[in-house]
């Protein structure tokens, strides 16, 4: 009797599985496997954040060669505060990778010979063991390589996955890879690349000089710094993002972590469209979107009114006390229909 029930349940489960598989294969978004490359090969341009490569548009799928070099180097985390960063191509975040669904991506990972440590890469856009971590595990002076087919469109995080993993990520080893859908994402006027990261330094926030990584703070998740693009001033002053009124803006936003989830918000703007979790579903009219560590999101908005718009992690102490703050400066014609300041009326009390 028991056996019979078990068999019934099992066959029911199998049928369910079979049905699921049919609909799974019919899903238009998941057809990357069947897309043939056109036989040409392109070496991907390297562009430093906050900028990205030109969109794929309606080009056919091809082979794309991505060359990344791991560089361990001392850099600024904040004015007067230095940190020993571990990077992909010398920047935090690492070089943006842009391809389309169906592309065959050859990833070459070089570990600079002057580095102290072995490293590798795990791309969340990969369907394969470790996201390529094993195939790319390299000692200083060596190069690892693997090839993968981009099956799923979306915005994905990549990061180093060498032990101690947390430390490699905490030191800046992350970046984003965008797999555009067939035909590309809709055109916009401006595109930017921003990643949030939490940093754990021996000295408190603002302490000058070369700061060591603090393992205890990292384990306790007590970040001294929460920054965009590896520096408290990466999107401030001369580095503000410049936009004109009427322009549409798309931000590829990732969260390297290692620990904290971001509550992404732009003060004074509403995201017209959010590609939730970097995937295919679009949510409209969003104020704040949650970006997990090791996750990403695409947000879009139209700059309506001139002014200064502040990008923050709305876990707001991080913005004002730990560095999670960037500025978008919108210039152009005022539009009083959308926003105007009213004349102050002095009331006689």
């Amino acid at each position, binding site marked *: 009797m028991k056996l019979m029930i078990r068999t019934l349940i099992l066959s029911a489960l199998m049928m369910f599985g079979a049905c699921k598989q049919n609909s799974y294969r019919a899903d238009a978004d998941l057809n990357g496997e069947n897309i043939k490359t056109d036989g040409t090969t392109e070496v991907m341009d390297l562009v430093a954040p906050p900028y990205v490569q030109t969109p794929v548009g309606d080009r056919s799928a091809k082979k794309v060669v991505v060359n990344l070099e791991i560089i*361990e180097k001392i850099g600024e985390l904040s004015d007067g505060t230095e940190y020993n960063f571990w990077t992909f191509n010398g920047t935090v975040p690492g070089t943006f990778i842009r391809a389309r669904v169906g592309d065959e991506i050859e990833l070459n990972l070089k570990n600079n010979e002057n580095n102290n440590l072995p490293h590798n890469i795990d791309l969340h856009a990969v369907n394969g063991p470790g996201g390529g971590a094993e195939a790319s595990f390299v000692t200083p002076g060596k190069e690892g390589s693997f090839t993968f087919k981009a099956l799923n469109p979306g915005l994905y995080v990549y990061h180093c996955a060498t032990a101690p993993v947390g430390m490699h990520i905490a030191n800046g080893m992350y970046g984003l890879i965008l797999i555009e859908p067939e035909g590309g994402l809709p055109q916009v006027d401006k595109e930017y690349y921003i990643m949030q990261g939490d940093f754990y330094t021996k000295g408190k926030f603002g302490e000058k000089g070369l700061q060591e990584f603090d393992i205890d703070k990292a384990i306790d998740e007590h970040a001294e710094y929460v920054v965009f693009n590896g520096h408290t001033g990466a999107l401030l002053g001369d580095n503000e993002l410049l936009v004109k009124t009427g322009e549409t803006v798309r931000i590829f936003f990732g969260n390297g972590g290692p620990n904290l989830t971001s509550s992404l918000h732009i003060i004074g703007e509403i995201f017209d469209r959010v590609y939730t979790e970097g995937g295919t579903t679009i949510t409209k009219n969003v104020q704040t979107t949650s970006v997990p560590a090791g996750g990403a999101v695409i947000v879009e908005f139209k700059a309506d009114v001139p002014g200064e718009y502040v990008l923050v992690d709305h876990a707001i102490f991080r913005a004002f006390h730990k560095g999670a703050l960037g500025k978008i400066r919108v210039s152009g014609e005022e539009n009083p229909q959308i926003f105007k300041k009213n004349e102050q009326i002095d009331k006689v009390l």
Partner: protein
Amino acid sequence: MKRLSLFIVLFTAVLTSCHNRQGVAVKEVPAVSPQILNPVETDKKMLTIQGGSYLGFLGKDSGRIVEVKSFKIDEAPVTNAEFLEFLKKNPQWTRSKVSRLYADDAYLHNWKSDYEIPDNAKPESPVTNISWFAAKAYAKSVGKRLPSIDEWEYAALADEVSKDASGKAEFTQYILNSYQKKGMYKTSIKQQKPNYYGLYDLYGMVWEWTEDFNSVMISGESRGDSSQNESLFCSGAALTTSDLTNYAAFMRYAMRGSLKADYSVNNLGFRCAKDL
């Protein structure tokens, strides 16, 4: 009395020492005719490390008490000057003559010539860009051997004042910081304070070859290794590592796991050991 014979047969264990990483094809090293090494005199100071036990860090030994027998070990890494002496007696190990089976093309690649050390290094700097095969050959030529991982780790538990500083958080932090310093392999040995035993430069100068480095099986997927010999890191490591906060040890084991016996790396040197 030196335990040297004029004819030391090398590489009998070549085939068994091939690095076999999970999922990676075994790199076959074909059998070669035994090589002959000329002995080299050395007066390098060795220190005796009294045997004992320590808590194994990972894999099958994780959390287990590992016994280490008493042994002798060089007080500091082998230097350029010392390695040069070896090359003069054993020219088959010079950069131009070495077999590519035993050393990759980064072997001594910063040397100006077969018998001239790099411009930016000193005679008393640790020799680097040497393969495991070369380190092993050197050790044999001076009547010694490479230390085992257990011996190295056991001796390196000591800070300046105690035999076992592994429980001290500041010691781990000190090692982590020393691992981040750049270019230390270009400086002279014995500039830092020695540890409890009198050993110099275990940390922060060079990574060091060990006899059984390739028993560390890091597949590169540091979070998934879970079979017994490959149990390392993150999700796998949460179950198989004795001390998750010992980031310094993680880094050493990851480094060992990333190596193959013919690799020659800028910041990888060695020191020798010997049975009592």
